[in-house]
């Protein structure tokens, strides 16, 4: 099976088909000079031969060039891509020109004999060809990449709007808030100090929920802090029936992940599992080598399955796809439910990385 990067693009095929007659003419002109206008054999034998040889060299060039694009695909890597491309393609081109000349000389095709002028001219033509076409291919690639980036950004924003709705529906509005009110109401009569703590955490949680509806990405540090507050609310309600263990390597705190991901996973765990003191629901959140954040819980299915949609999980998955981050996994066996989240390096290292939705999409939401 052909690898994706070894296939020529449409532009590459067209450019070969259209440029080859001219290139073959130039090559033969270099090899046989004025004879090309007199000797029909040059056209019958050498001309097709050059085309066949060039077809081979063209393929080699493409595989190298496309492989480099495959290895350094990003728009930000354009400089390194062009540098490496030049370093590889120029020697290969030179070798191709030398090979053609020595091949012709070796077989004495139509009485050809090697000379320095031919080599120089050949290298000059070869260099011109790759200069024109590699530039063309690179421009085509970069333009395509640019379009893709713009499109990805748009879809990402749309997804965020969906999640915003989701979050508004599932957290900001009904159940959770009302349940918290109840707990608060019980606490006020049972334990006033606890009630105050609870209310503090509740406002922290809602502040974060509302603010982060607008950000696509948040730092591990912020998400963890938030989930701690969120969990304290859960624990006040469910007591020892729910447990949370966190082990976060400090080096990962500035990394990014899609906002509210942890909250969604913890909420799902509580929603889909039976909680009891004897069999507590244990949620583990920890980082592992290779920039991964893992959320794991023991599975103890409810007697009656909770009505749930997998939209939340699908949403997270889609976000990672748009961010071109591999490594999002959901692993489910009889005992555990595990979600592996790739952490994204925060290249800006500022909160600016958690981009804000533009005004247009916001209007869509409020209208």
């Amino acid at each position, binding site marked *: 099976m052909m690898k994706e990067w070894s296939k020529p693009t449409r532009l590459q095929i067209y450019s070969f088909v259209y440029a080859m007659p001219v290139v073959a003419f130039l090559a033969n002109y270099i090899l046989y000079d004025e004879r090309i206008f007199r000797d029909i054999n040059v056209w019958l034998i050498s001309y097709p031969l050059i085309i066949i040889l060039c077809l081979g060299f063209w393929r080699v060039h493409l595989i190298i060039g496309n492989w480099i694009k495959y290895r350094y695909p990003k728009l930000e890597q354009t400089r390194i891509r062009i540098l490496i491309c030049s370093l590889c393609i120029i020697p290969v081109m030179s070798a191709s020109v030398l090979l053609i000349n020595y091949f012709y000389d070796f077989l004495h095709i139509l009485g050809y004999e090697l000379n320095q002028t031919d080599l120089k001219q050949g290298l000059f033509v070869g260099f011109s060809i790759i200069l024109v076409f590699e530039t063309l291919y690179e421009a085509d690639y970069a333009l395509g990449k640019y379009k893709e980036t713009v499109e990805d950004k748009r879809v990402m924003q749309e997804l965020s709007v969906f999640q915003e709705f989701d979050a508004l529906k599932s957290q900001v509005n009904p159940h959770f808030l009302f349940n918290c009110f*109840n707990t608060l109401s*019980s606490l006020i009569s049972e334990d006033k100090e606890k009630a105050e703590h609870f209310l503090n955490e509740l406002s922290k949680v809602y502040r974060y929920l509302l603010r982060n509806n607008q950000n696509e990405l948040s730092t591990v540090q912020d998400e963890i802090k938030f989930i701690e507050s969120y969990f304290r609310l859960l624990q006040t309600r469910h007591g020892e029936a729910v447990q949370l263990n966190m082990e976060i390597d400090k080096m990962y705190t500035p990394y990014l992940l899609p906002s509210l991901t942890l909250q969604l996973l913890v909420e799902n765990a509580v929603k889909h599992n039976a909680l009891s003191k004897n069999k507590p629901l244990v949620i583990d959140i920890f980082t592992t080598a290779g920039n991964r954040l893992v959320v794991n819980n023991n599975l103890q299915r409810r007697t009656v399955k909770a009505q749930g949609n997998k939209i939340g999980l699908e949403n997270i998955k889609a976000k990672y796809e748009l961010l071109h981050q591999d490594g999002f996994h959901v692993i489910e066996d009889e005992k555990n439910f595990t979600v592996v989240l790739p952490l994204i390096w925060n290249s800006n290292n500022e909160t600016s990385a958690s981009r804000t939705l533009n005004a247009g999409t916001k209007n869509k939401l409020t209208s």
Partner: protein
Amino acid sequence: MRILIVEDEELAVKKLTRMLLSIDPGLEIAAVTDSIVSTTGWLKNNEHPDLILMDIELSDGQSFEIFRRVEIKCPVVFTTSYDETAVKSFNLGEKEYLLKPIQKDELAFFLKKYSSSTQVSDT
């Protein structure tokens, strides 16, 4: 009067118990169960109480499932924090419910309603 409390949040149980006893210090909390499984088990092995106060969202699912598993021979008043619509959509003879946080006078109303009926049968 014997009452069964079906509720999975300890805090809510504490508060409800206190409120019940403040309305009628003489009533008996027959038991507190917190899930579909434990409630069904209790109802199968014990004499049914005079009234069940039943939370809808239990730790292992919605409490309506209990009705499919065991025949309940006493009145049930649902307690719910949000979705009273769930009570309405569930096809039961009695559709009485209390919205949480439970108001003392509303709770007293149901206690009075069902204690008088049991007192009649007791005497």
